């Protein structure tokens, strides 16, 4: 937590070492977050541009909240902008990960506290622990599925189980994770957007 608070602001001067630490800390979380909206390549571009902007304007950017809030908000806005311009360029369908256009407001970090917590360092550790606690087979399938982003079909073939079984493992893993993280990450429905 110390690390988190220490890096939750911009260095006043251009300090490459500090900048790299900030990058390491936020890049993975911003990337995973941005993938809620767009394909990975597009999100990578957006974060790189944002980070260069941050470097270039160090000292002149005033952040009223925290660096973390600022970064998530910036990525959120940039993703929306990109979706808009993709729509014009008709590449919308190909690049976007969204089921409906209405969906984006659920991921607004300023409106939805759950999002912030879900992509925070703290909860990251909780999630790790929760995954470690899954039954072995279930964990194996689940990790292949989300880290390797392997298709159910491939996993089933690799582990010599039926597709249905593989699906069931993934489903059960997600369910267990959600139950375990419920208190931390689900807040009462009436508080949600």
């Amino acid at each position, binding site marked *: 937590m110390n690390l988190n608070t220490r890096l939750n602001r911009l260095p006043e001067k251009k300090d490459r070492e500090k900048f790299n630490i900030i990058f390491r800390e936020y890049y*993975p979380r911003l990337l*995973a977050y941005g993938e809620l909206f767009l394909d990975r390549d597009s999100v*990578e571009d957006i974060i*790189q541009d944002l980070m260069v902007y941050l470097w270039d304007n160090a000292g002149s950017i005033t952040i009223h909240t925290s660096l973390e809030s600022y970064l998530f908000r910036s990525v959120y806005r940039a993703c929306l902008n990109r979706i808009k311009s993709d729509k014009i360029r008709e590449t919308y369908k190909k690049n976007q990960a969204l089921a409906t256009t209405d969906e984006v407001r659920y991921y607004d970090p300023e409106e939805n506290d759950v999002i912030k917590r879900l992509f925070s360092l703290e909860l990251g550790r909780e999630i790790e622990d929760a995954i470690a606690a899954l039954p072995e087979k279930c964990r194996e399938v689940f990790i292949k599925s989300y880290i390797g982003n392997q298709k159910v079909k491939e996993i089933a073939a690799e582990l010599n189980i039926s597709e249905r079984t593989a699906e069931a493992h993934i489903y059960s893993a997600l369910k267990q994770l959600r139950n375990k993280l419920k208190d931390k990450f689900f807040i009462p429905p009436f508080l949600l957007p």
Partner: protein
Amino acid sequence: MPVKEFDEILLLKKIQGLADESEEKLIERWLSESEENMRTYTMMKSLWYALRVKGYSEDEALREPIADINARIDRLEAGRRRISKMRWLKIAAVFALLFGIGVVVMEVARFSKGPEMVLVENGINQGIKYIELPDGTKAWLNLGAKLSYPERFDAQERKVEIEGEVFLAVAKIKAKRFLAETPAFTVEVTGTSFNVNTNASGKVEVVLIEGAVNLLDDSGRKAGSLIPGQMAKAWPEGDRIEISQVNIGIYTAWKEGLVMLEDAGLNEIVKKIEEVYGVEIVIDSLKARKDDTRYNFVFKKSQRFDTVFEMLQFVAPSREMHVKEKSGK
């Protein structure tokens, strides 16, 4: 449909991008049924992506992005150093003038090796940026794009560097060819408009709208050429350039919606703004109405009227004007 009855595996499939068309439709319908469904889905999806953070945090996964960002910063800082050094030389030349002509010649000679470079950068939160280069070439910078060009085009060639997406309408100057450098290749132009798009992974796309361009490799040899309607695609380390036919509109639409007025009088500009926004602008001063100063004025139709009006007041700061609601609008 309550949550429990809905097949969550189906949602997962959608999240992983594996759902087929009929499944997509089913999900879309289910999502539109209630807020609760939407919440279930968005939470599941958020958790799914949050799970990726760990993998992305590993050294192996971070190596490339870190190398990329540091390389970009290096380039940025190198450019800045180059520019500030040249400024210094210019100052040195001025000082030298006071002390003796011999020094001046030496310093000026050194300085004239390359004129000062101007870097124009568009942020990621603003709209499209329009600029005009010293030779009259017009450039539109998409979000996050960068263009650097010499302050004066007094060399044999007009050389610019591009990062991100830029649309260029190059001014025809026969004696001086126009070169647009990208990480993958250089575009050689005579008088033409085209769209260049480079992204952080290094991929470069050039779409030709009109005229003709040649594509040059590192050593300046011709590696291909384009006719209008064609797109060239290449990567910096790649050994070939892909050329294909494309629908131009798709690649240039981002710059549409711009209203450009060149060499226009205040009355002309006001008329255009009135037309676009359906307002009436009254210029109070008689003198201003008769003034014949010419302006270059560019705005985007998507910009709010207030913003454009502010720009107008900025362009013509001494003019007194106000807005009147137009009846019927």
